[in-house]
């Protein structure tokens, strides 16, 4: 038999809407982000899955059409627990502002997250994108994203779908998960109706999430499907 079990490398990218409308709930979302990776790690560890590497990064997003290049704030991956303080500082520094009217550039954030510098270590990997937003997503039309983001964002929803569904794409077929805490509406409902390995909680950035549904989400990440 192999040596003691398999090692898991877990990467989580948090896509957080930081437009002005998130003001009443952004602090709660920040708390949830800090708690989320701990719950994933605990779930894996309880099942004797060795988490050899755990990294998180943040993509805070607003609206390219309203905020230009300032619509995106990206962090690098933070290796936890060593860089916990830097991660907390980055999250703590996010402030709700801009965005104009709905919708926001949520799909662009998902596209940038999909192309993250995912780890290649570990016997098995989990590559998780978590989105918190209270608004529908701006349609991808190939015109909204300024440099340096334009080249990293597919030109339409179909191309973004291809990016996600491609088994040879940047994310592993078995390791990827997309968790949406986002309202029912353009963009988000299209994703949960079509894409594989997605769990969508239709809500204003996770408001009203039951413990049962939260547990289901964590299990869907920690276990094979």
């Amino acid at each position, binding site marked *: *038999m*192999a040596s003691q079990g398999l090692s898991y490398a877990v990467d989580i990218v948090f896509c957080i809407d930081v437009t002005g409308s998130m003001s009443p709930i952004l602090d709660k979302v920040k708390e949830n982000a800090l708690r989320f990776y701990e719950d994933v790690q605990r779930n894996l560890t309880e*099942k004797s899955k060795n988490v050899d590497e755990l990294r998180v990064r943040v993509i805070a997003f607003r609206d390219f059409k309203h905020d230009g290049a300032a619509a995106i704030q990206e962090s690098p991956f933070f290796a936890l627990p060593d860089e916990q303080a830097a991660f907390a500082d980055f999250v703590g520094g996010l402030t709700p502002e801009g965005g104009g009217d709905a919708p926001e550039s949520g799909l662009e954030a998902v596209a940038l997250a999909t192309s993250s510098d995912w780890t290649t270590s570990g*016997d098995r990997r989990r590559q998780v994108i978590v989105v918190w937003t209270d608004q529908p997503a701006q349609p991808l039309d190939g015109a909204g994203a300024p440099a340096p983001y334009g080249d990293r964002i597919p030109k339409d929803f179909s191309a973004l779908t291809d990016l996600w569904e491609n088994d040879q794409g940047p994310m592993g077929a*078995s390791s990827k998960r997309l968790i949406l805490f986002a309202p029912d509406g353009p963009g988000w*409902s299209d994703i949960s109706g079509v894409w594989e*390995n997605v769990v969508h909680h239709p809500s204003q950035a996770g408001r009203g999430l039951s413990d*049962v549904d939260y547990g289901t989400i964590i299990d869907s990440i920690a*276990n094979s*499907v």
Partner: protein
Amino acid sequence: MATVSFRFNLAQVEGQGEDADPILRFGPNLGLVGALDGMGGAGGTVYETPEGPRTGAYIASRVARDLVERRMVELFEPEWQLDGPATATELHRVLVEGLAARLVELKAPTSALRSKLVRALPTTMALVALQRTEPAGASWAAHVFWAGDSRSYVLEPEAGARQLTIDDLRSGGDALHNLTDDSPMDNTISADKEFHVNYRQVALSAPCLVVSATDGCFHYARSPMHFEHLILSTLHDAENAEGWNSALQAEIAAVTGDDAALALLGVGADFAGFKDLFAERTRGLRRRFIEPLDELHSQVQQAERELAELRHRRSTLLRELWDAYKPEYERYLAAKGDGS
């Protein structure tokens, strides 16, 4: 018929294992060997039950096990050869109706989640129904039914392990590739999604060992050959069937990262007979497959340790030498310029 048989069910978290106790029944001319694995990733929804909160995965494997075992016992007659395709259709019907009824009884909590990933009461199944094809003869028909990535095998004294099921994985059925690929399944039993029960019939000749196992048993082996060696080496070293069972459990528990359930039935020989019959195969397997792979694995591990040590030494030396070099290198950067 002389037989040897045992089964076990190892849970990673006591009382919360998502594998069902395996199916193991046998008579002079019949045998039933099955393993079912509730799918934790898709079936994490927690239901309130009289025994306390249980995940859909936990419930699914047990409900499906009871449904399948009961129906197979009803269908299985020594005098009649089983109609395999019709039985697969019947098992599908029983599972669809039974799981749907159980889901209603559970009064499923209202979920707001939308997902093609999350399922109601999802489980795998691998089941072999063995039927002797001639009175007191050595020929057996193995009717194999499965859905998902649990597996059934036959181990024959000369040929060794042969997989009877094909993993229902999106990536395909290569057993070595699937050890590391962790591919999503593309067909599993559940209460809310379409599925099918695969079937095939294989002619077996006793003496042989039939095994059904969940992926916690074989997925943590270094290779399919190592899994066969695990079964045979523990047989080789055991004094009796109980000792074999215990040793196999201990070996799997030491390395697995998942719940692990296995049922084994030998037909055509008793424990001592199987030990003799598989002795040469065990030696040959070790010599040809296990020792070369393990030796190279040890060398790789040693090289990785040495590489890590070299990298650490390089990093330390680089820092030490930079500290020695730096003062002169930065002399004019540190000093205040006089402007001349």
